[in-house]
């Protein structure tokens, strides 16, 4: 098991991570979610020891990763922004190089690379150096290098960034296949909630370096609001009565002339609409939107209402 325990990191007095704890088991996919600057990449880089953190521990099978660099044999990483391969080599040459760099070689490794190369759809680009590949195929080449020696834990930092729909689907299939065949644990950071939704067992949400949520994706989904009501008025409304118009779980933000409410069930809004009608209040604008998972998640993070 890979365990991050009360990890703290700050830069020039500004906290980047504050007491972040979570775990990743073999055969499990954990998503690390959060906006830009939330601490996702800092966490991944800490696990790779590319960053010196201030406090806390990171352990693999109960061994502190600072005690020996040999833990890196158990880690495969695709770091953000296509920064993972030697662009002057082909995908297969990269995979061979990085497997040997971690201390792995031989027939089994070569066979594994060949199989993954085909599964990733890279065979038709076998003779091209990475610099000549498309963004999606560059990402696949990076994944090939990270998976080539079958590490116990694979860290994927924003793996879907810049990829088209088909490539994202391919990536999902590959991760699912690896889970079944190689019993690897995946830690995935992403903004793409649809991608996360299809592959992850557990979600860790960070915001400004703080852990907002750790639990199953279903639990997170249950906390997401499904609707958003926006009203623009031409006359001020009695603010004191607004909260009493809503039941159940909701989040209401209002000033004199605008009202924004996030809520869970369609009939929660009826009392509000009835009040407007009864008091003959004519809205300049009234919209009810069904929130996508992504938008709902963003709304919830902004409200810091995940705990």
């Amino acid at each position, binding site marked *: 098991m890979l365990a991050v325990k009360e990890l703290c990191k700050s*830069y020039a007095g500004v906290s980047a991570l504050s007491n972040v704890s979570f775990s990743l088991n073999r055969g499990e996919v954990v998503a690390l979610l959060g906006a830009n600057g939330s601490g996702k990449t*800092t966490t991944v*880089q800490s696990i*790779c*020891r*590319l*960053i*010196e953190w201030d406090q806390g521990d990171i352990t693999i099978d109960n061994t502190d990763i600072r005690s020996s*660099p*040999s*833990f*890196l*044999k158990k*880690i495969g*990483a695709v*770091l953000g*922004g*296509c*920064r*993972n*391969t*030697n*662009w*002057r*080599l082909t995908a297969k*040459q990269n995979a*061979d*190089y*990085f497997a*040997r*760099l*971690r*201390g792995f*070689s031989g027939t089994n490794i070569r066979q594994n690379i060949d199989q993954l190369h085909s599964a990733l759809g890279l065979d038709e680009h076998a003779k091209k*150096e990475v610099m000549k590949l498309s963004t999606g195929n560059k990402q696949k080449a990076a994944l090939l*290098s990270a998976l080539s020696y079958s590490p116990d834990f694979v860290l994927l930092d924003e793996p879907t960034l810049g990829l088209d729909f088909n490539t994202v689907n391919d990536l999902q299939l590959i991760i699912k296949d690896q889970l079944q065949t190689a019993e690897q644990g995946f830690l995935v950071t992403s903004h793409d909630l649809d991608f996360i939704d299809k592959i992850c067992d557990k979600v860790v949400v960070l915001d400004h370096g703080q852990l907002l949520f750790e639990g199953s994706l279903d639990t997170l989904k249950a906390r997401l609001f499904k609707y958003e009501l926006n009203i623009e008025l031409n006359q001020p409304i009695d603010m004191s009565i607004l909260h009493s118009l809503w039941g159940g779980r909701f989040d209401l933000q209002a000033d004199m002339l605008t009202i924004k409410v996030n809520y869970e069930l369609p009939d929660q809004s009826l009392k509000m609409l009835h009040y407007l009608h009864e008091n003959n209040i004519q809205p300049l604008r009234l919209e009810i939107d069904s929130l996508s998972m992504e938008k709902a998640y963003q709304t919830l993070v902004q409200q810091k209402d995940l705990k």
Partner: protein
Amino acid sequence: MNTHLFFNEMKLQWYEMRQYWFETLSGLFFIIAIFLGLFYGIKGFVLEQGDGQSLDGLLLGFLLWTFASGAYGSVTKSVIEDTQKGYIEQLFLCPNGFISLMLYRSLSESIVGLALLTVIAYVVMGITGNWLNINFAYFYGILLLSAPSLVGFGLMISGLALLFKRVETVGALLNLALMGLVALDGLPLNVFTFLPFVPGASMARDIVLDQSLFRLDHLLIVMANSFVYLAGGIFTFKALEKQAKKRNLIGQY
């Protein structure tokens, strides 16, 4: 000796030289062209002075500088170029440590460099007709023993590159300074002995040009010079690497 890392770096050299054969060949031609320009530029002047020994010195100095540039650049090139090309973070994930990886990379590049140096030496001697009686095994032995001082020096500059990123100007200046280093005389012991590579270059010159006898005290000075600069380079790089990791600067460009 970690043969795994060594052969991996040799293989990387082979891949790059084979796939970018035009770059490899044009690099060789470029070096040879520079030398020929220098050689014929000063030949007339030197012959007027009746000093044929200077042409031999120029040839040997050129070979020493070519080797020194390669050994010094093997680490700095990796850190600076791989930071720009973007996979230096993956090199830091080497379980044997980044410094070990760089040392094996330097060794493999030096060995390949010596092979290319032999080609360059024979080509320039053939073209200029200025044949040196070089015992290559002896010559290369001295160069390999003195190369760690340049690698250590390269590690110091590379550590600065991790922190300050844009150190190409400093690197280019130091590359030129190497011309001075290979020309200085660091043997017997004097103030220049303490500069990197100077004792090694002096010993190579004494043996190849002056046909001097092998001296154990000179060899010990060369080894001590290498040891001090390599140890200093490793210490400096580790300290700067720690700073870079604290500030999250590895790979950021």
